[in-house]
């Protein structure tokens, strides 16, 4: 299992398009990916669930990934938070 913490840096929180992209990305892997903020946890397979987390700038979230391709998935999601978000 891979667990990693990230901070949302955009002032308004995760924008609509990155949210959609994150869900799309997570769905390409077999592993089950989930996102946790405080004591709320959701699976990263639903845009609605992600939106309902109400992520704001400065929030700290934890991503859990578990499954056969967790290494690849972990890298891709890490890359998403570190690189892609900057360009959006």
């Amino acid at each position, binding site marked *: 299992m891979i667990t990693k913490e990230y901070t949302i840096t955009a*002032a308004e929180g995760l924008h609509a398009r990155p949210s959609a992209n994150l869900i799309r990305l997570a769905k390409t892997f077999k592993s089950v990916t989930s996102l946790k903020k405080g004591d709320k946890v959701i699976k990263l397979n639903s*845009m609605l*669930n992600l*939106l309902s987390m109400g992520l704001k700038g400065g929030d700290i979230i934890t991503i859990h990934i578990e499954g056969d391709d967790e290494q690849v998935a972990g890298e891709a999601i890490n890359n998403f938070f570190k690189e892609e978000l900057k360009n959006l």
Partner: protein
Amino acid sequence: MNSIINNIKGIGASPGIAIGKAMLLKKVKHVKTGIRLSSADETKNEIQRFEKAVKNSIDEVEAIKKSILVNSIGIDILDVQIELLQDEQITTEVIEKITCQYKNANDAVIEVIDASVELLNNLNGDYFSARSADLQDAGNRLLKHLNAAGISDKQVPGENTIIIAEDIAPSETITMDANKISGFVTKMGGKTSHAAIVAKSKGIPAVVGCGLELDLIKTNDIIIIDGAEGNVIVNPTADVLIEYTEKKNNFLKQTVLLNDLKDVKAITTDGVEITLLANISNAADMEASFAFGSEGCGLLRTELLFMNRTSFPDEEEQFEFYKTIALKAKGKPVIVRTLDIGGDKHLPYFNLPGESNPFLGYRAIRISLDRTDLFKTQLAAILRASVFGDVKIMLPMISNILEVRKAKAILREVKDGLAVRQIKFNADIALGIMIEIPSAAVTADLLAKEVDFFSIGTNDLCQYTLAVDRLNEQVKYLYEPFNPGVLRLMQNVVDQGSKYNIHTGMCGELAGDASATLLLLGMGLREFSMSASSIPYVKTLIINASITRAKEICQHVMTLDNAEAITHYLQECNKQ
């Protein structure tokens, strides 16, 4: 045609003037049928209908996507919509309602979408209400495909159309033809609704949130929209029409100027770079200021955060406020002025004593140093926000150095407190003062040793130096920032700042006054903070001026003995 002028007030969502004919956008309202499914076949059939509607909806959005330019602003709305249309959570819930609760697809979709929209609305904040609009939009599209009969005839706008609608769905805004639609007005919505954002990006004037009064408008009524002020005028008189046609032309000229100058640096012809900052009150101002070419915030008035409420905002709320602005500034400076109430600014929940001279009384830093509880809360919140950007603290109304020392001692205490709480902050946060009391201007050499920067507040400096209340009609003619006495004080502040190597800026009205720009450059001022809309014009003056000439102008001004002569001379200088 209705000859009475109706003025409707809404929220200005996208600036600009539009004049055109009204087109009322009708919406199909989907309602529940209450039908209960009675056989397994029906259930199976409804699930298939739902899945087909999802597929058709996605195909439709993909088709819209292909029809517009890649990278056009707002295209992300379509990606989001596709994602929502195939959302697993929504799909699961709809199918569950069909199979377990025997609802038909139409009712199941309405219930699931309504519940989810409400969930997002309850999250508060403009961002989430924009997302709930996306979701509603996706839901309506599904319902349209479920009920083929409900597909409305597409209304085709003619030239110079002004759309009048309940609300405009996010996906509708991006397919709108900006060549034909000159503006739109909606009953619902706020400044950050999709409709508003897309309108802004397309340069279409828009007024949102007008409420029920919009029902008064009929098709083909002549409509004027003032998108900056949030005004909608229905069937104007000829005079009003002429007035707004002129306003419209001026706005277009201004926009061209803005776009041309936005990314141009404010560098004089002899190569000196000048920093142009914006005076702001909230995060929206910060963002808007960048469109005018600002390079950060030279004055964040924190009063707005304290007004229109019933009690003081706590540390957490203040922290959120400062943090959002710091993040919006994206690394550019944000100078936060600590609470500046008293004088003519009051808080309904904070009783200030009745004073015979409120401007000479209990106000600004004097309150902060007396009510250290309030001051500490504000400082803690600013310090916590300081890790999210280039945040600086500025103290208003400093009259002597002891106030600075006292404030610094309190700041140290607050820093220690945060360290104990193990909260991150910028330990080296810059601390500056407003120079707006003559004693501070005269003793700038002393104060410079104690602070990191000065910012000249010309409004109060002028009022206190000349002993003139500018709100008093009988004496306000004496209120004159070009009074040689006021100018000499300013010159001293700039000189001492440069002698002691601390940064000096100006955040009063004079900083945005085009007639003063050359004089201030000549004095040696290199940082101007003003209302964002003044930046482009001041910038044009700077890029066409040289410091050599500005110095000559300043030297000549200092030989003149009265404000009238100085004003006249500076006007002549700008004409050249």
